[in-house]
């Protein structure tokens, strides 16, 4: 049994027999066959050794480029310039993230969900998208936002408490952060259904974590996307921990294998290998564009930090685990590769360090000068077409505020009317 699916090319009917499955497997692309074969191997190995299945890796933790018959072609045109861009993305994303953690500690942000350790998964997949591809993130996709060109300081408003989202998703094709776990996978699926209806060849990518795979909405998103053959990529960052619960508390099977039951391919990739994440996501997006439907990518990575700044991971996991993952750090890995191949010199790293400092300073300055919203803004944008009760309560609250002796003269005018 493989994770290769009959569903992508044949009408989706329950109970496709083995005969049909093998017939369609012959028609699959070489990449899919390799994925399927890889999973066969992985599952066999898993059964034999009781270990984890293999994952797609193009750069070893030591930064050595290894060949991969299935996925090499998706990064065949990567230049040293491109590698430096990926490196820069990861370094600046990590710096931005660290700055946000510090700002939370200083009381400038109420909360921050750090992406530390997941830079490769986010930058690799984010850089695989085209400008017209649409991203549906969780609340931790700071690296994907960066790749989509979202000003990182926009991400901070909701964590400072000045808004509940705040950016225009259509500017960069990057939907608002979604806090309730897994909901956005359905939005992504619906959006992708719309893309298909429009006859566009863009794709949609939905981010979620290992914990989200237990949510009904994710299961329903898998079902809907498969039934309608929607051009959506499900990008699961398995960072091993859903706050305090390890992945074993979410699933008895490796997460990428869930795809098999829904009739589309699933693949596990080394989530700390930016090149592999780029390649696998390109494969999945191209599949979606070509009308071959959804796919699931499980980026096997690690949340190096706490779940959020409110979390204390020492209560549920050991330091040794983190240390083991530190050896697989996504940034060090690419740096080792760049240096070994002579693709980057000291000047490049020094320049990047300076750029990183500049970014850090800008983030601090922007956050500290972010104004609190006006109280009357509570009544803004609740409805697109207005609502009598909102108008009434706005007027009442404005009159109440104006009733204080020290109220500004024009306070009774209230906020903007929708």
């Amino acid at each position, binding site marked *: 049994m493989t994770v290769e699916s009959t569903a992508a090319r044949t009408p989706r009917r329950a109970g496709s027999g083995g005969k049909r499955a093998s017939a369609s497997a012959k028609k699959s692309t070489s990449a899919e066959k390799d994925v399927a074969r890889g999973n066969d191997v992985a599952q066999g190995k898993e059964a034999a050794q009781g270990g984890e299945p293999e994952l797609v890796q193009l750069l070893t933790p030591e930064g050595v480029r290894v060949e991969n018959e299935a996925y090499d072609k998706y990064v065949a045109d990567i230049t040293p310039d491109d590698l430096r861009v990926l490196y820069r993305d990861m370094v600046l994303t990590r710096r931005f993230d660290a700055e946000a953690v510090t700002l939370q500690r200083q009381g400038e942000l109420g909360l921050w969900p750090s992406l530390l350790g997941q830079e490769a998964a986010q930058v690799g997949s984010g850089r695989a998208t085209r400008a017209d591809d649409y991203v549906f993130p969780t609340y931790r996709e700071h690296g994907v936002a960066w790749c989509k060109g979202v000003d990182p300081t926009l991400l901070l408003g909701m964590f400072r408490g000045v808004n509940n989202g705040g950016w225009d998703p259509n500017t960069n094709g990057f939907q608002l952060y979604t806090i309730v776990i897994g909901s956005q996978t*359905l939005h992504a699926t619906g959006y992708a259904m*719309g893309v298909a209806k429009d006859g566009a060849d863009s794709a949609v990518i939905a981010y979620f974590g290992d914990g989200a795979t237990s949510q009904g909405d994710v299961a329903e998103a898998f079902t809907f996307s498969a039934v309608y053959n929607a051009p959506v990529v499900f990008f699961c960052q398995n960072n091993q921990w859903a706050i305090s619960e390890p992945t074993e508390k979410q699933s008895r099977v490796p997460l990428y294998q869930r795809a098999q039951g829904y009739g589309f391919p699933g693949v596990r990739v080394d989530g700390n290998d930016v090149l592999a994440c780029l390649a696998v996501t390109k494969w999945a997006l191209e599949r979606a564009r070509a009308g071959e439907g959804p796919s699931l990518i499980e980026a096997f990575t690690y949340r190096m930090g706490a779940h959020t700044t409110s979390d204390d991971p020492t209560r549920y996991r050991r330091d040794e685990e983190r240390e083991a993952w530190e050896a697989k750090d996504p940034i060090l890995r690419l740096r080792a590769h760049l240096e070994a191949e002579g693709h980057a010199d000291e000047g490049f790293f020094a320049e990047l360090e300076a750029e990183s400092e500049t970014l850090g300073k800008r983030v601090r300055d922007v956050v500290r000068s972010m104004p609190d919203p006006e109280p009357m803004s509570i009544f803004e944008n609740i409805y697109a077409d207005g609502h009598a009760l909102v108008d009434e309560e706005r007027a009442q609250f404005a009159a109440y505020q104006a009733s204080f002796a020290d109220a500004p003269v024009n306070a009774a005018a209230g906020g903007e009317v929708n």
Partner: protein
Amino acid sequence: MAVKKLPIAKAINESMRVALDADPKVLVMGEDVGKLGGVFRVTDGLQKDFGEDRVIDTPLAESGILGTAIGLALRGYRPVAEIQFDGFVFPAYDQIVTQLAKMHARALGKIKVPVVVRIPYGGGIGAVEHHSESPESLFAHVAGLKVVTPSNSSDAYWMLQQAIQSDDPVIFFEPKRRYWDKGEVNTDAIPDPLHKARTVREGTDATLVAYGPMVKTCLEAADAAAEEGKSLEVVDLRSISPLDFDTVQASVEKTRRLIVVHEAPVFFGSGAEIAARITERCFYHLEAPVLRVGGFHAPYPPARVEEDYLPGLDRVLDAVDRSLAY
């Protein structure tokens, strides 16, 4: 002038047909809405005429229906999602309340999610459990949603088109036990604004406020009361959120007595909100406390006793008598 006599179900069908015809972005989606035409045949023939791409049979998953409808709306579509029965909406409640209602505000107004959720609601059809509920208050309580319910064919026809044209999410409750009640629909008329209440019977002694399936019950009660020499005014709210308190207030200032009637349980029901606000607005006009007639604080009962649970003519008249006794 094109005036047709249509049952409510058919008026809703015609309304969707007009909307599908007028705007290629309008989609109809839900369980069994396509080939079957819906379990009440409300979508009958739409898939045949507009295709599977626009009248979509969905997997049997309500959260999935709403979640994908939101995604389609974000892409520029105007989905009209059907929840097959009132009691089946709760798997989708999270998507409606947590996502649909808040998205426009979260994006500071930069995106719109014009999703209509059609829900056949209410009892009186002898159904098994979860098929007879009236959960409108659970949606009216949520900012970001609008909640409307027609009581007759003309409103069903026009209000659904207005809901589809609205840039806000609208929960459209359909009085399923009145689906086959016929009424005139003038398809050339200029409809009333979607969120305006309507006085459907003039009276002087007390005001009955109702919506959806209870409007007919209240009109019958007013007929019966007239035989006893009592003159009841009946206001059809049509819209529960926003709620047209001005029309109710004007009526109560005239009649000085108010009884709110709905199938939903009285406790924390829409009648409680109406009573509170009308008491604030009409304190010096009221001759009696605002009374409420509705469901009990009990699970919707088995069909064989539902007529005892649902407000009927006698329970409405009993409340009228109690009001007039003050």
